[in-house]
């Protein structure tokens, strides 16, 4: 038998991801009212995702490091192209149509921003000095701003997060952390008062108080809380969730898939699901901990924490403690190109863990 190590695969991560994929297919089958098309579509995407993961895992981290600035530059260029095309057609534009397939340059940046930030900070002694922190913040904010212009605020915030994780892990001074938090805190009321239009304020208010829009976002939150709450301790059983069946739950295959899961599998199922996610996250942090090189450990840490951020924001949104911002539940939600990006990130983690400088014992 060929060893997994030979193929640069990390067995614990692989097992965790396969189990999550199985759960995804089960829940999607139920959420789509037993229509085969959606789980099959997801299966195809997962297959491509695992293939990409395997391929990325073969690339040595040194190569990834060397490519970081180029990947970032290409991503930035494509973002500008998308904006230019968008400005041309006077509409929101996130996609680049390449004839055969369409793709979102912001997907590249989900990897490009943490890679570039890690590359930039790892060039010098850590912890970073203020000048370097300034440079790193620019690296993070420029693409995030371009993505926010598209406008895709959710993705922009998550990409900002991935870069901020790198800076934090690199050892940014605690005083600076607190100072920047305070700065952001004071900026919010200023932006609110001077930079936002009335309708934009309305929309933000609606995020925090769903009852302002009982037929829109508020309806989502109320219905998803009913689904989760009525699931109880043991759940209603697979294929028995009435909320999703009767079509009360909107976007039950995508952003609100967790509500379907919670209704059918109850708190017990949730504990199992959480354990899987926590296991994957801890494994990722473990890989970061044992990584041998500064760039690799910063990148591994950031990718893992970003994965957790997705998970946290999505569950928070479905359970009504965070505003509805349209973030999918990683791996489980039915979704297009983002699965490929996600799996590529796991490929990077595996690469970091399996290409070790010291010969294997």
């Amino acid at each position, binding site marked *: 038998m060929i060893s997994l190590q030979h193929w640069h695969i990390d067995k614990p991560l692989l097992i965790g991801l396969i189990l999550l994929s199985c759960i995804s297919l089960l829940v999607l089958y139920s959420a789509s009212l037993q229509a085969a098309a959606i789980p099959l579509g997801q299966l195809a995407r997962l297959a491509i995702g695992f293939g990409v993961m395997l391929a990325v895992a073969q690339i040595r981290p040194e190569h990834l490091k060397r490519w970081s600035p180029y990947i970032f530059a290409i991503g930035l260029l494509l973002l500008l192209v998308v904006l230019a095309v968008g400005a041309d057609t006077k509409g929101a534009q996130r996609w680049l149509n390449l004839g055969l397939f369409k793709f979102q340059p912001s997907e590249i940046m989900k990897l490009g921003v943490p890679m570039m930030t890690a590359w930039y900070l790892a060039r010098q002694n850590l*912890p970073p000095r203020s000048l370097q922190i300034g440079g790193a913040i620019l690296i993070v904010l420029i693409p995030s701003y371009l993505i926010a212009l598209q406008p895709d605020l959710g993705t922009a915030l998550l990409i900002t997060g991935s870069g901020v994780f790198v800076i934090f892990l690199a050892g940014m001074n605690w005083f600076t952390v607190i100072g920047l938090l305070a700065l952001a805190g004071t900026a919010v009321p200023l932006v609110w008062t001077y930079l936002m239009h009335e309708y934009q304020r309305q929309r933000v208010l609606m995020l925090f108080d769903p009852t302002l829009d009982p037929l829109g976002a508020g309806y989502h939150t109320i219905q998803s809380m009913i689904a989760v709450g009525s699931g109880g301790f043991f759940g209603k059983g697979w294929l028995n969730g009435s909320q999703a069946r009767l079509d009360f739950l909107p976007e039950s295959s995508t952003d609100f898939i967790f509500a379907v899961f919670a209704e059918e599998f109850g708190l017990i199922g949730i504990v199992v699901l959480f354990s899987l996610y926590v296991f994957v996250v801890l494994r990722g942090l473990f890989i970061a901990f044992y990584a041998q090189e500064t760039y690799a450990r910063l990148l591994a840490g950031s990718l893992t924490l970003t994965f957790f951020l997705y998970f946290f924001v999505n569950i928070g949104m479905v359970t009504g403690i965070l505003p509805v911002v349209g973030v999918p539940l990683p791996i489980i939600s039915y979704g297009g190109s983002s699965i490929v990006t996600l799996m590529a990130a796991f490929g990077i983690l595996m690469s970091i863990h399996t290409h070790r400088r010291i010969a294997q014992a």
Partner: protein
Amino acid sequence: MLNIPIKDYFRETRIFNSRLSFTAVIVLLLCLTLLVRLVHLQVVSHTHYATLSQDNRINPVPIPPVRGMILDTNGVVLAQNYPAFTLEITPDQVDDMGALLGQLGGIIQLNETDLENFRKLLRTRPSFESLPLRTRLSDEEAARIAIQRPHLQGVELHARLQRHYPLGELGIHFVGYVGRINDEEMETINTSAYRGTQHIGKLGVERSYEDVLLGRVGIKSAVINAHGRGIGALEDQRIAPVAGKNIYLNIDAGMQALAENELGERRGAVVAMNPINGAILTFASTPTYDPNPFVNGIDVESYDALLENPDKPLINRALNGQYAPGSTIKPFLGLAALETGVFDTKERINCQGSFTLPGTSHRFRDWKKKGHGRMDLHDAIVQSCDVYFYNLAVGLGIDAMTDFLSRFGLGRKTGIDLLLESSGLVPSPEWKQSQPDGEPWYLGETVVTGIGQGPFLVTPLQLVSAVSVLANEGVRMRPRIVRATEDPITHELRDNVPEAATQIILSNEHNLDLIVQSMADVVHGEGGTGRRIGWDAKYKIAGKTGTAQVISIGQEETYDAETTPERLRDHALFIAFAPVDSPQLAVAVIVENGGGGSVAAAPIARKILDFYLLKRDKQGPARQVRGG
């Protein structure tokens, strides 16, 4: 592998590991928070949510409000709603769209426009949305579809209120129209207010008063059975929609029709306003076009035809048409001269047909080649002597002229209650220097400003607003299209209160009287340029003719209307108010390429004044409304 720069590797690792441990703790804490929340939902409040889930047979559905009507001042309906059957298809529920469309085509008539619009929606709208294929089905067509419905998966008939403009083209430029909400509007509207509503005001009053007309969306609780099918509605959980307010305009549809008919095939604008309160009674721009096709999306060919029409019907000439004011500017400049006292109006000037600045050779010509002879200010306004006003302009100076004209509201927005008003332009040295080429101001430009030529631009609305200032003792009222809004249930009217925009404080009342007297003599006096409309009038009119050049005439050339191509002929202008003693109506008329103001524009103004001052009271309102 040993090319790693020398680093304090131990310190780096220590920091990184402590940060990583910190985040691991945070991750676990956040997970715990989520779990606490889930325990709260699923264990503590489980009974509550289980009951809700049991009772969850209720699906909230938006009830769109009824859009307010638009009526003229006498209650003639300009925009209304009528129920019509709409044939809609939900693409998600259709297996073979081509086959279905073919099948439907066999039952009712579907033309290429319907199909094209539908395909456009198919490409741009989410597939779970119900998309209209044909609107305004006849009862018979609706019945035929209803019979076939069991065989038509994904097809639905909806009785929806359709916006309709019964008078069609009449007043399109101020009524405007509604159309489907587009992606750009989607970004800026409050989406919760538009649930169930597919239309939004695009132009005119429909757009400017969108908030008033829209109303508030209601919620109906549809009851569904265990299979998710709707079986009725819960009356006690219904939140009734609030209908939009009706809007009464100051516009008199009869006068509007008269103005549009008088302009006829010609391009132009007629604006009539009550100078005392700013009420706009007529706001005509020709050519017009039918707003009805825009409601559900006009087809590309018809729209292109409107766009490419050389007469540019889509342009609102009354609001956005910018023209050189020509000689209509003379009374205002005359008042400026009287008020500032810089230019001696007592002295007569001998007009010999042209004016030359000292030390130059360029001749600024008078429209009357052999000249007007000895002129004072009164005569110069009555006979529209250009040479007098060349002198006056130079005497007054550009800064004083600009300042005074701005006080009449020229070169700036009047503040009418319609969006997208144009501001026109009163040229000044500052303006010229701010232009890209940054050329300095020449004295010659001051000269031509004196007769309202050069880069000077005004809109017909500004002209009527300015002449109203003369009629209203120096007070400029804000022009108002809308007279009042009406609650459709209680019929309670809320007036759009007149408000003064600016006031010109006169140093001497007689100055204004002299200008008004001159304008009255334009129409009624000897040698007046507007005598054609004055001799048989039953009341006294104060007016001023104007002619705006479209092309410039060379030094040795003469302008001949007969030989000049129509599109290059002069624009005809006329401003007036009446009766002179107690002004009730002010009018501005512009006929593009109409030639002289006295021939083309003044007679239209006379008809409008006659209608308002003589016929309206006797015949009762709105007799001449065109049929829709």
